[in-house]
């Protein structure tokens, strides 16, 4: 009887344990396009290691990308976001001036909105080599 109860408890807890195991140690990032009337495409997060994390889909206004997993060595590190801003048939390649940090063991939500600092490499002087950190949202 006791053995049966233990077995039943184990079976009940198994999904919970599996869920915790899956959630732990996994670092992911998403990007939200909060720019009214504009689409962003070719989105890449490039942390200081130089690795490029690509978001395949074009994001319309208000859309959020699917999650992209971040390698262990890029967790907790900041990086700029490269993207193309598209409006009314015209586009410009931009790089954020802010640095976005992927929080370890969590899903970090990067939000691009009209107030986000951004430059075009050919139209201006090179991007600040010491970008200031952006406020990540979860």
């Amino acid at each position, binding site marked *: 009887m006791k053995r049966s109860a233990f077995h039943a408890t184990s079976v009940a807890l198994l999904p919970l344990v599996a869920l915790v195991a899956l959630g732990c140690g996994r670092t992911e990032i998403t990007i939200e396009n909060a*720019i009214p*009337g*504009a689409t962003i495409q070719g989105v890449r997060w490039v942390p200081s290691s130089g690795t490029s994390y690509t978001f395949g889909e074009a994001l319309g206004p208000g859309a959020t990308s699917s999650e992209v997993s971040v390698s262990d060595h890029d967790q907790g590190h900041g990086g700029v976001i490269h993207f193309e*801003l*598209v*409006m*009314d*048939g*015209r*586009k*410009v*390649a*931009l790089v954020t*001036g802010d640095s976005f940090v992927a929080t370890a063991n969590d899903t970090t939500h990067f939000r*691009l*909105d*009209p*107030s*986000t*600092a*951004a*430059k*075009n490499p*050919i*139209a*201006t*002087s090179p991007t600040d080599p010491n970008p200031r950190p952006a406020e990540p949202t979860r």
Partner: protein
Amino acid sequence: MRTTLARALLGALLVCAAGCGSDGSSTGQDAVQTVDGRGTANTLVMMLAVRVGPTNDPALSTHQGRYVDFRQIRSVELIVDGRDWGRYEADREAGDPATGEPVGSWSLHDEPSSAVVVAGLGTELERTRDDLDTIGEWAELLDRHLVTGGHVAEIALVELETNDGAMLDVTSRLLFPFTILEGDRSAFVGEIEVPFDAFPGVP
């Protein structure tokens, strides 16, 4: 002869307008591409003359139909397709070098004395050569262009400067249709005459 000179100057200015950034710098507009690879127009060019109309200014009442010297035209406020595009300085160097006849606070010509106005349709920030720093500023720039087809420019206001250095705003509300052809990067709005009907506030 004067017309030939003016057209030669205009041609040179159109070339300059199409290839802006000649000092080696790049503007925000230079960084903008079209999704389909085709160019869109971002510069308007016009020749602007101010003609003396019926006036209550006793010094000018007998000079109707004559033209204010182009060097007295300071700036133009432009509206395109019903939307404010900004205020643009007139080129006070490019024009007929002949000086006009001094009449009161003005220099007048018998023939049109046209100032050239090159209106780059960037944002106010870009025109002042500030770097564009935020996504919102870049979005505003992407939104400022003219697609192929018909458009209407409105000369909302012309700012004149008298020989005494006083400034005078002349409202006109004149409309000028123009067309952007496929592949055009700039458009010539036309040779525009703004009637100058009164001289309020000028002694």
